[in-house]
């Protein structure tokens, strides 16, 4: 019975420091997750993503705003509604796993059912099913302290789903695992959540994790939701310079808009060269802009004739085995370019021709960040 989650104008203000300063950890955030959908909140630490999740769980009390789950109001400080976590029927997977070390795997998973007074028979059945789902059935009677980190995280997942919660909340569940395990569990997580059909809100600072797991990604910064969209939109049409930078577009080229045609425009670079880029809404002719570009979208071997061709000087080359990173001097600035494959085709201190695909260059007002 997974439900829709609606977060409306959520605000959480902390008072910190001396003299006391009010700081909004979450600043007017609104979004809706459809039943069965996975939404990932992505952002750097301190952006308010975890606070948002904890408000949904009822562990944190927002200053204002409303949280509606399955059509029922659970949080509305103005109306004096603050349902405690235990009555929300949500599942949550914590960053530290939070599996109880004094219990076995089975006892951990059965705990929420006991709290609900489920009959022994129904409980055993539900626990077995949950353990099957995370492939830990053969570990049921082991103390959790004998498990590896990844197995503990799967116990936590089974525990959070065994009582068929309305919504599953996941707070950086993979950040304590080593890199290889993280990759495996990342794929497992999405498969398991989708098989059960749960609505899920997932918090992470890892963009790769967000892209693989989320049906939609919400990029947050300083308590504000900067963009909430599908992964392809986030990657190919970032709403602002921050979203572009956070999703990996680390190259920034400055310039000024000469002419605008539709959603594209010709931008004059400081060297006098012209670059065609996609213009965000509200970027006008004559305005100073910053152009964001992913290193992997720099075309190092353009074929035939076309626009946005630039002569670049290979300043340095960092061979990384399966890929090569080049630092290029181009149009008066330095950008990074990525070549995939074990073959590095360019030498240091040579001049090459590169193409910057106009559809993948995004220009934003220079005053934004």
């Amino acid at each position, binding site marked *: 019975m997974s439900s829709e989650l609606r977060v409306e104008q959520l605000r959480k203000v902390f008072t910190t420091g001396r003299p006391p300063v009010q700081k909004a950890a979450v600043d007017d955030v*609104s979004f809706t997750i459809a039943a069965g959908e996975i939404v990932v909140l992505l952002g750097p630490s301190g952006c308010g993503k975890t606070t948002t999740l904890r408000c949904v769980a009822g562990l944190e009390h927002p200053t204002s705003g409303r949280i509606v789950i399955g*059509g029922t109001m659970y949080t509305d400080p103005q109306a004096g509604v*603050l*349902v405690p976590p235990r*009555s929300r029927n949500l599942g949550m997977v914590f960053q*530290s796993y939070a599996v109880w070390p004094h219990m076995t795997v089975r006892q951990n998973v059965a705990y929420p059912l006991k*709290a609900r007074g489920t009959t022994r028979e129904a409980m055993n059945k539900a626990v077995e099913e949950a353990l099957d789902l995370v492939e830990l059935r053969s570990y049921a009677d082991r103390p959790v302290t004998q498990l590896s980190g990844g197995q503990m995280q799967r116990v936590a997942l089974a*525990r*959070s789903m065994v009582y068929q919660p309305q919504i599953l909340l996941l707070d950086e569940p993979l950040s304590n695992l080593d890199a290889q395990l993280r990759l495996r569990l990342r794929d497992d997580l999405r498969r398991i959540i989708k098989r059960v059909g749960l609505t899920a809100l997932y918090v992470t600072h890892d963009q790769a994790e967000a892209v693989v797991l989320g049906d939609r990604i919400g990029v947050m910064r300083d308590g504000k939701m900067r963009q909430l969209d599908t992964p392809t939109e986030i990657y190919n049409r970032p709403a602002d310079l921050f979203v572009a930078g956070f999703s990996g577009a680390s190259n920034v080229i400055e310039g000024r808009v000469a002419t605008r045609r539709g959603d594209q425009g010709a931008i004059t670079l400081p060297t006098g060269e012209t670059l065609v880029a996609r213009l965000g809404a509200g970027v006008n002719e004559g305005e100073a802009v910053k152009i964001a570009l992913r290193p992997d979208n720099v075309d190092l071997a353009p074929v035939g004739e076309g626009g946005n061709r630039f002569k670049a000087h290979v300043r340095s080359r960092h061979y990384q085995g399966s890929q090569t990173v080049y630092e290029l001097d181009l149009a008066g600035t330095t950008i990074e370019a990525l070549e995939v494959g074990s073959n590095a085709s360019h030498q240091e201190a040579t001049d090459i021709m590169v193409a910057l695909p106009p559809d993948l260059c995004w220009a934003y007002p220079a005053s934004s960040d």
Partner: protein
Amino acid sequence: MDAQATSLAMGGAQTKQHTARTYSWLPWAWAALLIVVLAFLIIYPTTMLLIGALTTGNPVVDGYQLSDLSIANFLTVAANPNVASALLNSLIACGGGTLLAVFIGLSFAWVVVRTNTPWKGLIASAGMLPLFVPPLVAGVAWAILGSPKTGLINLLMAKMGLPFRVDLYSMTGMIFVFGIYYAPYVYMFTAAALRNMDPSLEEAAEISGASATRTMATVTFPLIMPAIISGLLLSFIVMLGIYGIPAVLGSPANINLLTTYIFALTAWSPPQYNTAASVAVILMIVTGVLVYLQQKAISGRSYTTVAGKAFRPRALNLGPWRFLTLGLAILYIFIVVVLPTLALIVAAFRKFLFIRDIPALFDMSQYSWIHFNKMFDNPLTLQSIYNSMYVGILTAIVGGILSFAIGYTITRTQTPGRRIIDVITTIPVAIPGLVIGVAYLWAWIALPGGLYGTFWILALAFVARFLPDTVKALSTSLMQLHKELEEAAWVCGRGMLGTIGTIVLPLARPGVVAGMTLLFILAIRELGSSLFLYSSGTMVMAVQLLGYYEGGNIGITAAFSLVQMVLLAVLITFTNWLSRGAAEGGVVKTG
């Protein structure tokens, strides 16, 4: 971004409200309950003590009278030359004792941490043993060894024809016994600082051209100075509140310290309760100032570079000199552990303490269980042991529950007023046990049908006295539990009490059990506060021992001392086994 727009458009209309009552008054009620309990345990008795110090009426005869409340009454007492001399004696005895303790403790720390003296580990643990000996037992043992006429040392000297005599019934005697028994306090602080110091700081000094002694004087000691000062002040504070040692060693020479003077005032006929309260307040003020200084010393140690990193401390190669340091360490342990224990054994098992010559010391026909038999023939002996156990259990249960409630409230909840609760809880740090005894006496003696004369007044006084340490110990073990372990249980559908029962308590159990056992141990060895609160029906072990000593029967006194030491040793070993060292730290902080 259109998701936002739709969600806003949909807002409200078809939303029903979850019907959950929120008990917003509950945290306030809980905070109020805790504050009332703490006021009853700590604030009320302290206030009554102050009132006692500021009035002249005898509470037993007149009840509590506030009519002549005046600072003049307190000042009259403070100006009394007897009070001044007791204060001066206290400062001399404890000051001298502290200096000796710092000398021994610091040398011991250096030998154990920074040299290659053999058997360092063994020496270090043996050096901690004096901490567990109740001060009264230490006093009794040294009275047996060093009383001017019948002391074993003096008898042996006389038999061997040596002109050398010792007299521990003196200021020097008290300084000596204080110094050797409280050296471990200084040792613990300084050894930790020496161990945690980055050795490269000293290496840098030596590379810059400083000699080893110069390095020690200009780098090592300045860096651990906050630890030295902190250990110094702590041992001073504990000594100030000790009753057993000055009672045994000072009283025969008519040297009164503040503690013995306070007790003497209440033992006079008629008892001088107001004067006793005034002197107790003076003792409390002195202790309070020292506690404040100690807290400052601890907080000011940021520059000691005590990083979280573990360093391998540099061990100085002493060459053949390492056997000298070993010898000195063994000498210390011999003087402070072996010699007093032997004295107690000899006194407890010999029919007569008179020893004609050296061979007579080993004449087995002179040894028997006679003192033990006499001791246990007195029904008061077993009764006092039983009473101590009973009070100990009351203290452990009440104190354990209260400390857990306070510790949980302070560290784990957002309860309003938890800062105030925290502050009230730490007040007893600055109140010596004896002063708590006087305060409780004042608080309850004039209330008919009240607590006075019951087991509960002893237990509650002990709970109040040891509250700061037990709350701190329990808070530490609670803070080690990750907050998310609790939150996970809430999200899974348990309420706060259910979570405490199924998650917090089971996980914190080692700490809670250790804390309660420690309370039990501290309660059964407590003398200072018991002195003022026992009645004929609630005589406890420590007071009974003092009774035997004052009755003049050294054999029975020594026998009972041994019984108590064995009892404590068993309990402490058990607690240590339970909690890996918690008992050690606990006894240290409270004396």
